[in-house]
């Protein structure tokens, strides 16, 4: 039978397994916003850890990070592990989000900001920031699935067919039972991701004569790629900081992951969630980077580093069955990120935009229905965006994907000072939060466009770095010049202080 048949067969098995899991999750579904979007805050530690892992790690790891390693060497490892080191901040933010989420009944991170700053416009601003920057991020994931299926099937599956499959899976798994179906399918997908990637890396390492031989061949073949700055000039310190800074704060800047800080059912579940994720992230990062290094040795000289993974999978040393399973693993990584983004954006659309700005007296039932409608609408927007970009000529495609991906993470970074202020600074104000988010995002987008068109970066610093500096200064300056919501700040931070002490949190 042809490879196309087996690719379709693998996709069909994957979709069937996901649907069965999602439908099983629906059996325990109750009523209400908290039930649908947060699984009623009763998710166990194992599922919490794996849904957090699958949501965080997308197709970027085995394609983008592996490609970045192929192109620039060990700097890619440092960049991705800097993100993982940033997860140390979970010891501060996880208990804080969890405690106030339970106390005040927050459904989205934006609702937390609106309440803490006593201004619905703060939540709305952060919501718009998420809508603007997460749609392109989701679209890039869809395109990744399309190109991967197209590549593995040797062109038999059109790119747009792969995109449609990813969209339909994401809509189904987020709509069937909300967070329940997303978390359960994420758990399944996280296991697929880690097992398949470890298996295929094992095959590559064995083909290279084991780890000892792999490392010594790497040292002799590509010594310049084992240091930073890279000998070839790919990695420099400005690029490292420009890429690492937005990822360092990913745990609070990206609402699809920070919303998950509301879901563990107990302190024990929180501990399992954090511990499980840290171990998963450590292993998965090393696998992705070693995979990229393997590609350097086995398929040198590629013009486009993003093709390192598909090219490596097409080598005769990788059994066809394993290549297809890995394709499913990477597809799972992309879809588990997209469905979480859709679910979060739908909760944000219903709670922070519809209820917050348009119809404050809406019933919970109607609010939930609005949220469920937002899921396919956002999916269609992301699909349209991905399809439109995929249809552009090659050079224009390159011009659009790179700034979108880079601007997405940098743009979301602009909410970070407001989130820090909410938990740690009683003097923080709503005008400070709004101005810093809006101006920071404008600076990022403006510098991104200038950089893309002219190649110019002021002092060599990346747009996210400049945006963050401007954003932080504005947040502090405007907050000091305006009146804080003293009563709420005292109550919110006072409550946390008391509970943190009782739970031995820090």
């Amino acid at each position, binding site marked *: 039978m042809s490879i196309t048949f087996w690719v379709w067969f693998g996709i069909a098995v994957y979709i069937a397994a996901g649907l069965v899991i999602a439908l099983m999750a629906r059996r325990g579904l109750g009523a209400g916003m908290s039930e649908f979007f947060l699984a009623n805050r009763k998710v166990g530690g194992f599922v919490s850890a794996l849904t957090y892992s699958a949501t965080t790690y997308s197709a970027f790891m085995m394609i983008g990070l592996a490609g970045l390693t192929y192109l620039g060497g*060990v*700097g890619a*490892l*440092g960049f991705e*592990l*800097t993100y*993982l*080191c940033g*997860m*140390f*901040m*979970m*010891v*501060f933010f*996880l*208990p804080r989000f969890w405690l106030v989420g339970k106390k005040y009944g927050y459904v989205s991170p934006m609702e937390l900001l609106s309440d803490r700053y006593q201004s619905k416009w703060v939540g709305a601003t952060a919501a718009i920031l998420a809508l603007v920057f997460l749609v392109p991020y989701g679209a890039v994931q869809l395109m990744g699935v399309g190109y991967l299926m197209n590549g593995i099937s040797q062109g038999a599956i059109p790119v747009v067919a792969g995109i449609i499959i990813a969209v339909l899976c994401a809509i189904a798994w987020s709509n069937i039972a909300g967070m329940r179906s997303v978390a359960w399918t994420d758990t399944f997908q996280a296991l697929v991701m880690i097992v398949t990637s470890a298996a295929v890396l094992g095959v590559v390492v064995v083909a290279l004569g084991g780890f000892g031989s792999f*490392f010594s061949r*790497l*040292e002799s073949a590509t*010594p*310049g790629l*084992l*240091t*930073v*700055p890279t000998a070839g000039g790919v990695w420099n*310190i400005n690029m*490292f900081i420009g890429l690492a800074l937005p990822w*360092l704060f990913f745990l609070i800047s990206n609402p699809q992951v920070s919303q998950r800080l509301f879901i563990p059912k*107990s*302190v*024990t579940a*929180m*501990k399992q969630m*954090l*511990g499980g994720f*840290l*171990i998963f992230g*450590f292993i998965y990062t*090393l696998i992705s980077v070693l995979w990229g290094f393997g590609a350097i040795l086995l398929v040198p000289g590629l013009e486009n580093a993003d093709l390192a993974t598909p090219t490596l999978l097409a080598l005769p040393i990788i059994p066809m069955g394993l290549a297809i399973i890995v394709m499913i693993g990477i597809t799972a990584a992309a879809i588990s990120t997209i469905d979480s983004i859709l679910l979060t954006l739908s909760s944000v659309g219903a709670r922070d935009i519809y209820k917050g700005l348009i119809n404050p007296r809406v019933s919970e039932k109607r609010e939930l229905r609005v949220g469920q409608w937002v899921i396919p609408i956002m999916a269609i927007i992301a699909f349209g965006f991905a399809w439109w970009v995929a249809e552009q000529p090659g050079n224009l495609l390159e011009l659009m994907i790179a700034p979108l991906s880079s601007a997405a993470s940098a743009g979301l970074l602009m909410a970070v000072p407001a989130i820090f202020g909410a938990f740690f600074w009683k003097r923080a104000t709503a005008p400070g939060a709004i101005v810093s988010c809006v101006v920071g995002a404008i600076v990022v987008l403006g510098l991104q466009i200038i950089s893309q068109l002219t190649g110019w970066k002021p002092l060599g610093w990346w747009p996210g770095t400049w945006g963050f500096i401007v954003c932080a200064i504005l947040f502090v300056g405007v907050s000091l010049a305006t009146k804080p919501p003293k009563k709420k700040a005292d109550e919110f931070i006072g409550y946390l202080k008391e*509970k943190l002490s*009782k*739970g*031995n*949190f*820090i």
Partner: protein
Amino acid sequence: MTKTGWAWAWFGFLLALDIAIPWFALTHVEKMSGAFLFWTLWVALAIISAFVIFLRWKEARR
């Protein structure tokens, strides 16, 4: 300094190492035992320190 303050200071120290060691001290070590090994051990240290802190968390008394 409070426990929270010490934890923030430790995190800041880890980030300083992230730049100082691979970007300045190990720039000429063109081996797996250079930046690759450093970043692997460095993040393991960050993960272990997070474990040390969060394993002490307990259910709050009613």
